């Protein structure tokens, strides 16, 4: 039966994450953006919420409660706090979920318990390439078999690269077929250059150059039963849905600031929110945010049902990224000059929202 009510358990998670996002993440957001650095203590405390470990299989210490719907509910709340910190909180998923889904037994045993332990361990995915014509299913980065090893060559960008990252899942083409490879962060031939981006400044991302990087054959995701484009398609769809959820969170945050400001700010003797030009703009924002959220839920639900959700994920992402950008821009506009200065958050939401068209597939739910 069609219904739009989260379960009690999901609602509890939403409430908990919302509280954390408001009390901890939001408060650290501006400073983190200015410093272009993540607040380590917030990430440690976020880890205690167990969002990552609860989604991993019980045999590896996880909660065994994987659900894309729960994932998008939590992702929206985290991003409602702050997008950069939300992406960092969820970054372990970049490694842990592809391994859980497609990894060999050895890979699962080796990696998953490290994400379910007491300490926060960031993850990383090297998918996007610094080319306008980048196609995730046909990367220019190559993997060539050489005896018992693979040799990786190519260039990646927008690779999350937090302090303490131990390995990165590199997406590369082997004989024209796309595959994933688990590469240690300090592998010889790997060089990382910190990027400076328009938004999500607090999240350290790098351009990753791979020159003759050698990894053992067992580093290929899934080893002998390598999933190829099945894994990458899964990563892409999860990423689209997770990012769409984050986009809804960013839009909601920007909307709330605009709404509250409009009720405070007086012109000609009355709050600007009493003017239809502003009030209708706010109404449209609220409508669009709710519409985008429902599309995200539908795509996530479809994934949980085990169906191919490519169309729904694409549509949800398309809508959510448009809405986030329009709402963030609208929020800057409602605040006027105050929206443009860094004392207020809308300018940051606008920079962050612009990124949703670029962050292809940060695979997070």
């Amino acid at each position, binding site marked *: 039966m*069609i219904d739009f*009510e989260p379960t009690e358990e999901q609602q509890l998670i939403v409430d908990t994450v919302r509280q954390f996002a408001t009390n901890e993440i939001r408060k650290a957001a501006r400073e983190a953006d200015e410093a272009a650095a993540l607040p380590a203590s917030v990430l440690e405390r976020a880890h205690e919420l167990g969002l990552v470990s609860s989604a991993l299989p019980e045999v590896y210490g996880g909660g065994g409660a994987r659900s894309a*719907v729960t994932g998008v509910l939590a992702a929206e709340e985290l991003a409602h706090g702050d997008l950069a910190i939300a992406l960092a909180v969820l970054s372990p998923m970049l490694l842990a979920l592809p391994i859980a889904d497609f990894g060999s037994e050895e890979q699962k045993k080796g990696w998953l318990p490290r994400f379910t332990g007491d300490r926060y361990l960031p993850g990383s995915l090297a998918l996007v390439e610094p080319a306008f014509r980048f196609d995730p299913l046909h990367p220019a980065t190559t993997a060539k078999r050489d005896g018992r090893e693979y040799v990786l060559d190519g260039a990646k960008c927008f690779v999350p690269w937090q302090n303490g990252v131990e390995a990165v899942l590199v997406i590369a083409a082997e004989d024209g077929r796309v595959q994933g490879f688990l590469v240690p962060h300090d592998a010889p031939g790997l060089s990382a250059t910190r990027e400076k981006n328009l938004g999500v400044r607090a999240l350290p991302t790098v351009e990753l150059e791979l020159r003759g990087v050698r990894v053992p054959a067992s580093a290929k995701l899934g080893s002998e039963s390598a999933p190829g484009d099945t894994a990458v398609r899964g990563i892409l769809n999860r990423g689209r849905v997770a990012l769409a959820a984050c986009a809804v969170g960013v839009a909601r945050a920007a909307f709330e600031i605009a709404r509250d400001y409009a009720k405070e700010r007086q012109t000609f003797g009355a709050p600007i929110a009493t003017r239809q030009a502003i009030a209708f703009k706010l109404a449209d924002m609220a409508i669009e945010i709710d*519409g985008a959220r429902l599309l995200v839920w539908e795509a996530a*639900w479809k994934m949980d049902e085990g169906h191919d959700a490519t169309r729904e994920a694409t549509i949800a992402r398309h809508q959510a990224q448009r809405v986030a950008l329009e709402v963030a821009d609208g929020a800057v506009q409602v605040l006027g000059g105050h929206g443009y200065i860094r004392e207020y958050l809308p300018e940051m939401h606008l920079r962050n929202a612009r990124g949703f068209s670029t962050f292809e597939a940060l695979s997070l739910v």
Partner: protein
Amino acid sequence: MAISFEPAPNTVAAREMYHRIAREQMRPVARKYDEQEHEMPWEFVRFMWEKGRSPPGSFTGPSDGFVQVCVQAEELCWGDAGLYLRIPSPALGGSAVAAAGTNEQKARFLNPFREGAPKWGAMAITEPQAGSDAAAIQTTAQLDGEEWVLNGTKIFCTSGEAAATIDGGFVVVWATLDKSAGRGGIKSFVVPAKTPGMKLVGLERKLGIRASDTATLVFENCRIPKENLLGSAEIKKANPMQAGDKGFKGAMATFDASRPIVAAMAVGVGRAALDFLKEELEREGVSIRYDAPAHERTAIERDVIDMEAELQAARLLTWRAAKMMDHGKRNNLEASMAKAKAGLAVTKITQKAVEILGPLGYSQKILVEKWMRDAKINDIYEGTQQINQLIVARRILDYSSSMLR
């Protein structure tokens, strides 16, 4: 409950049944009744009346409730929105009776719809000088002994001709007992078909939904029994929206139920155009690559994805508003969100379809141009885009109607 987009088997069965009706009974005559405006589509009307009197027995078991009603409306309006409005039923007049009427009134006005010949109900709110601002209504109702006497002019009354002139039908008329009381003085009255003093003086010629009659009704000393008032006759001057009165508040509450249906109707029209466009593109060998990188998408692929996203967002907002009714939750914010989104989305979607289809889209050889004309009404009736924005704005800002006008 849990978040789910899986329709109940009942909904699937209903969707199939109404889709077949739309395809077989509505599409073939859609153009005819668009061109022969004001002509009653009797064959279709009788078919739907018979269908409605013999409900299929298979629709038992778990149900999506009001969402199923929305799905049905979507399917039928995929067939033809004008003909949908012609289906003999108590329609909005019935919603008003159901929302604000006593059991006796429900039995008296709605039971006739269970038998006999086709009948229609209608709602008469709008006046030449009062549309969205329903409190500005000038039509008066005065008690004279055991009867109410109505005087005034009503326009844009959907199915007004059929409801006022065909036996067994009725028109729910909004009128004021006391103009100085504003909203508090507004009440609704049931005027049975053929009541002396209720006159059909004109039918609108419209941009679209031409198969639906849109009447101008004049009330000249129109007398109805005292028992035809819906709700109480008490005038609440303070704040009628807060009071327990079923008058104005009850009448407004019918919108909470009707707006999701109108939104679903809109989605049906938009889907008709989008389905046609996608089929046409497929015939031409153009497929929509949902997993292609953004830079590889053609302008048409991008447009279609955008149209699909807009339509589905409208549909889901509609279902959410409907589902809240099933859960007994106040849904006036969500109903207005759905209505505002759906009306505008399908207005744009159908216009885009005409654009993409080029000369074919502009030609009356196919129905896309008609759907574009039909779609626009959804942005206007049952509360314009702007009035729904206003309602949403008041709710999200926590402003009263006097604080945000």
